């Protein structure tokens, strides 16, 4: 089966323009769709399909979503710092107040991660980000049990946001965004009896949450100290057992394209990705490809959508599919974007 690179690039370009009205359920997470499109084009090595002008528009729109307190603002304003998922709550200035004056305009930890990721892919130097303030916004979301909620504007708290917080701290090179020890406690509490990680303590182990847990520890630099050799071996076993053709996310669940990334990236972080059956994984992923519109679906013969299209490509990137550039498994950004980030880190260290 052929990999339809050009069609996938066109699929992402369409996402960046206008989505149909039935996509309204994405209204509060448009930044996530933007990230999938921009990072997807990056993995396809097709970023040049975006004109310099278009890249500028994307950058400006992403910055438009940033809630960022000034140093003179109070603690409660600082706590709301970060990227919003969309402009739904951005109001035009009324009677001279600034547009972010509504207390519901509030950063969302996962959107802060995808916002920063999008900017890095576009080559931005993050100089407009007040790193201390954005880190403080992340820190404000950490709970006494170590988990993170998504946003102070009312949300659940779990492993997904621990990962987003860790990724933001890593990107900002500022771990004041979390109490690492507390976050680590939460991660270890979420290790299930079958040796993989769940969304939270006591819950069922799951491929996506296992990625979040393992990638977080790896970004903190403590994966091999917090987990014993035996625990790591058992975790590798659980992950490797997820493969049937593609990967499933839990025992006795059907395979699904996105787990080719979630479980695949976890295996990569655990240094044993080469032990999977690559051709079976590739064949399954390509069988979910839509050869007419571009894009990938969750399952064979179902509709394509942005999330599965992106993670199918991310999974193929792990497989070193020709035409794709390499992905950094922990940060879920291209290696190229991460190299750019590391250069920024050096500059920040010198300043």
């Amino acid at each position, binding site marked *: 089966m052929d990999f339809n690179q050009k069609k996938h690039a066109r699929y992402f370009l369409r996402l960046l323009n206008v989505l149909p009205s039935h996509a309204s359920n994405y*209204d509060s997470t448009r930044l996530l769709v933007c990230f999938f499109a921009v990072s997807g084009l990056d993995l396809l090595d097709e970023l040049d399909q975006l004109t310099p002008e278009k890249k500028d528009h994307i950058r400006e729109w992403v910055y438009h979503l940033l809630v960022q307190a000034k140093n003179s603002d109070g603690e409660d304003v600082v706590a709301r710092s970060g990227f919003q998922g969309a402009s739904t709550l951005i109001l035009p200035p009324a009677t001279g107040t600034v547009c972010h004056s509504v207390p519901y305009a509030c950063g969302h930890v996962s959107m802060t991660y995808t916002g920063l990721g999008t900017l890095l892919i576009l080559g931005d130097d993050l100089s407009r980000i007040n790193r201390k303030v954005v880190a403080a916004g992340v820190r404000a979301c950490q709970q006494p049990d170590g988990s993170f909620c998504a946003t102070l504007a009312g949300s659940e708290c779990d492993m997904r946001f621990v990962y987003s917080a860790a990724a933001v701290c890593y990107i900002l090179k500022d771990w004041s965004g979390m109490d690492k020890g507390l976050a680590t406690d939460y991660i270890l509490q979420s290790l299930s009896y079958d040796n993989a990680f769940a969304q939270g303590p006591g819950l069922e182990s799951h491929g996506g949450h296992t990625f979040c847990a393992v990638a977080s520890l790896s970004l903190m630099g403590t994966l091999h100290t917090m987990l014993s050799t035996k625990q790591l071996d058992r975790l590798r076993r659980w992950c490797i057992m997820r493969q049937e053709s593609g990967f499933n996310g839990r025992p006795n669940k059907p395979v699904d394209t996105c787990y080719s990334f979630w479980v695949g990236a976890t295996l990569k972080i655990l240094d044993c990705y080469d*032990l999977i059956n690559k051709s079976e994984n590739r064949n399954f992923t390509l069988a979910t490809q839509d050869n007419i519109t571009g894009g990938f679906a969750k399952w064979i013969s179902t509709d394509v959508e942005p999330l599965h299209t992106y993670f199918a490509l991310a999974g193929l990137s792990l497989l070193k599919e020709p035409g794709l550039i390499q992905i950094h498994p922990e940060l879920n950004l291209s290696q190229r974007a991460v190299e750019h980030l590391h250069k920024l880190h050096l500059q920040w260290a010198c300043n």
Partner: protein
Amino acid sequence: MTDSSSDCTCEDEYVFYRNRPHWKDVTPVPQDDGPVPVVAIAYTEQFREIYDYFRAILRSGEKSERVLELTNDAAQLNPANYTVWQYRREVLSYLNSNLGDELVYIGEIITDHQKNYQVWHHRRVIVEWMKDPSKEIPFTNIILAQDSKNYHAWQHRQWVVATYNLYDSELEFVNDLLLKDVRNNSAWNHRYFVIIHTSGFTADTIKHELEYTAGKIREVVNNESAWNYLRGVLCHTESGNISSEEFVLKFCEDLYETGCRSPYLLALIVDICEELFELGTSNTVFSVQRALQICDDLALEHDKIRKEYWKFISRKINQALLNRSTD
């Protein structure tokens, strides 16, 4: 409460907010999407208008019955908007609304959006406010009857069970689910969750659970969930070793003798052999040579998709053997 979902669902009867007399005093506030929007959505007129009114309300801070109605409409169009739910809760709290009605309402929304995080979170907050978990077990029963592996429903149930100490009938519930589908991994996980928070894995419980699980494995041998649970139980023996229970060793051997070559059985035998070798207590049945042989069998015949993995395990065991002989 005056929530009327029909406002949104029946296009024919739909009256725009601008034409509703009791909204005349509110001036809608448009969205500021920046100079050049990206990933724009071609909103319907209805969507645009409802969110214009919602923004106006966020600005004015109004908390009233009509705002509850508005949040219902806004949530129907995008149940993933956490701010809509947050504001709705603030209104409910301010109006001192009947939370029992709200629970019925959110139950209906969850039924239509079973995998949406925000709606489950809303339900949880309402239950916390009411300090009344009595509807939650029946409610999750209904959702789990439609999808017995729904992660949100399980999470909600475990939260309720743990928070309000409602463990009493949970093991029975798990038993029923496993009778219906012995491969239900969520049910196995719940079994573990219930036991660890009630009796704990005492010697008697370990014995019972090992026998129960062995029985379930005999029914369906290629069931990873049951094998994983068996190993989970073994972690609670005095030594925590997978080779520590004579019952399990015999169970594995019996299955093997009767011709069973399930990869999960073979994997456990490999691990037992390896563990006994590490402990220095290998025997003729569970020997390191047998582990190597079974790794080959798995790679070449019984678990071919994991061929490279079993070759890797085989190399690892060989290395351990080598290290031992040079010690």
